[in-house]
């Protein structure tokens, strides 16, 4: 008997679905809002006066869990902006074909030179198109939209004195607050930024329950 009732119920469910508006987001025309921490591709940045930020310290190459970064350091030379001697890169190659998007390279970057992008890379006809060389990485800075995270912001966020989220008195609307599109989160309000580890989902899971009881 239960089978027939369930059958009738499911037949009703398809009718209800039929009457609902489709949930499809018309992809090429409309792009659905991406999560705040959405990041896919990479770019290297310049500082305000126009000098390259990357000093070729190899920190990102060393931390990369899937060995996608290869840096060839250039000899130290004087910066045209500050006049100080500093390192530069001759070649910076990022193999997007094997990147897992863990963002560790951004996190360790001492000069905030490497950032991830919100604009996805185009699917390529050829695997070489997915190997980002220095030229392409600097071009990405101008062409594409960057994610908010930089090395110093990620580190500040995890600082116990500044940004360590306290379990007892977390701000209630953290989980429900609509994520700002690409607004860089200032260091003074790090609680709004989700921690890279599982802190935020935990807050999201436990917060409404506490509020209700």
């Amino acid at each position, binding site marked *: 008997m239960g089978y027939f009732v369930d059958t009738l119920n499911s037949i009703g469910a398809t009718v209800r679905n039929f009457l609902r508006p489709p949930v499809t987001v018309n992809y090429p025309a409309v792009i659905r809002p991406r999560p705040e921490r959405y990041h896919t591709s990479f770019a290297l940045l310049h500082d305000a006066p126009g000098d390259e930020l990357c000093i070729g310290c190899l*920190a990102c190459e060393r931390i990369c869990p899937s060995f996608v970064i290869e840096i060839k350091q250039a000899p130290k030379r004087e910066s045209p902006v500050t006049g100080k001697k500093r390192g530069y890169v001759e070649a910076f190659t990022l193999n997007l074909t094997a*990147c897992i998007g863990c963002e560790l390279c951004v996190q360790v970057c001492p000069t905030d030179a490497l950032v991830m992008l919100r604009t996805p890379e185009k699917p390529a006809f*050829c695997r*070489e198109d997915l190997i980002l060389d220095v030229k392409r990485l600097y071009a990405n800075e101008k062409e594409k939209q960057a994610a908010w995270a930089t090395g110093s912001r990620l580190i500040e966020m995890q600082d116990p004195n500044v940004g360590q989220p306290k*379990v007892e008195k977390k701000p209630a609307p953290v989980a429900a607050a609509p994520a700002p599109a690409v607004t860089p989160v200032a260091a003074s309000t790090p609680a709004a930024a989700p921690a890279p580890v599982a802190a935020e989902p935990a807050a999201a899971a436990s917060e409404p329950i506490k509020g209700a009881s």
Partner: protein
Amino acid sequence: MAVIEEPRSYFHPLYDVMLSTPGLSVGVAPLDRLLTWGLKNALWVFPMATSCCGIELMASAAARVDLDRMGTIMRASPRQSDVMVVAGTITVKMAPRVRRLWDQMPEPKWCIAMGSCAISGDFYRNLYPVVPGIDTFIPVDVYVPGCPPNPEALMHGLMRLQEKIGLQREGKLVPSEPRPDFDAMVRPPALSRIGDAARAADLSDRQEQAALTMCPDAAPGVVEDEEKGFAQPATQATPPLNTELVELLRDRFGVTEFPLNAPPVVSADKHLELAATLQKMGYRQFLFVAASHRPAKEGSEDLCEVAYGLRTVGAGTKEAIWQVRVPTNQTVPSLVPLFAGADWQEREQYDLVGVKFAGHPDLRRIMMSDDWVGHPLRRDYPADKECAPWR
């Protein structure tokens, strides 16, 4: 560097007849456009999904993205599909099967490598069982980057494929700009890839056959070479000993033993103090908590071993790993007050191993249902019979 392989064109017999008949050859160009339009707009996908990218592949056919909008449906038989979407890590054992399914597809056919694992093997590409990219044995038409790419990216990939089909049929496909050959530059050389100019020169026919079939039997003489191709030695040096941590543990926490293959053991009452000290020293990222159960043997009681890992953030990353051993019925101080990231992970250890964390704000089951009896990863959990609540 790799070049784009010859466009694989397959012409219907109808074409040949029309081309050879004088009056009808006029109709070939419009017919060709029509047929190309048909090819482009009815791409049926063969879902070669082996791991997490497969979930995104499923999602791309579901309501939010809906590949059916562009006429793409999934077919279960390779005989009726046009595009093989390889989504997931392909192992050496799987590769011959993938190749076989690919061979069973009728021309004209295309292949999309979805996600890092299919494109290059991702960070498993140096492991012996993993194929470093499916283009070592299947010609790939479109690479969709991501780990995994989201459904929209796959749809974008299919649109790029449509674009490519059009370019192929018009003979306008141009090779992309030269870029550094990453595999040759950084890591030990991976298997040469289909479409690679060097491939034809390097490989003898039998080696090529072996690379295609991934089967050592096909080329008894080149088994060694093949194995080298996949089983590359780990290039990572062993990480240096964290002397800072060793000194800290020895001086302030009274730890004397530092075994090579296990984390040092810290007593449960000093555990929280150690974590707080490390946090002040800059170990601000919570890495993991992993527990295991050690059943009672002669001379030792029923123990739970709980290993914790922390890491510094920023350049020059260091890791600190230690473990706490407590009898099963006692508690371990929770790290959640210090590291919010420990919340779910401690819940998981509680759920599966049964470690009780003192001071955890929300110690509930996270994987098993709330009415589950027992902790499945305990050694004394009965593995050979079904337990409550499921029978």
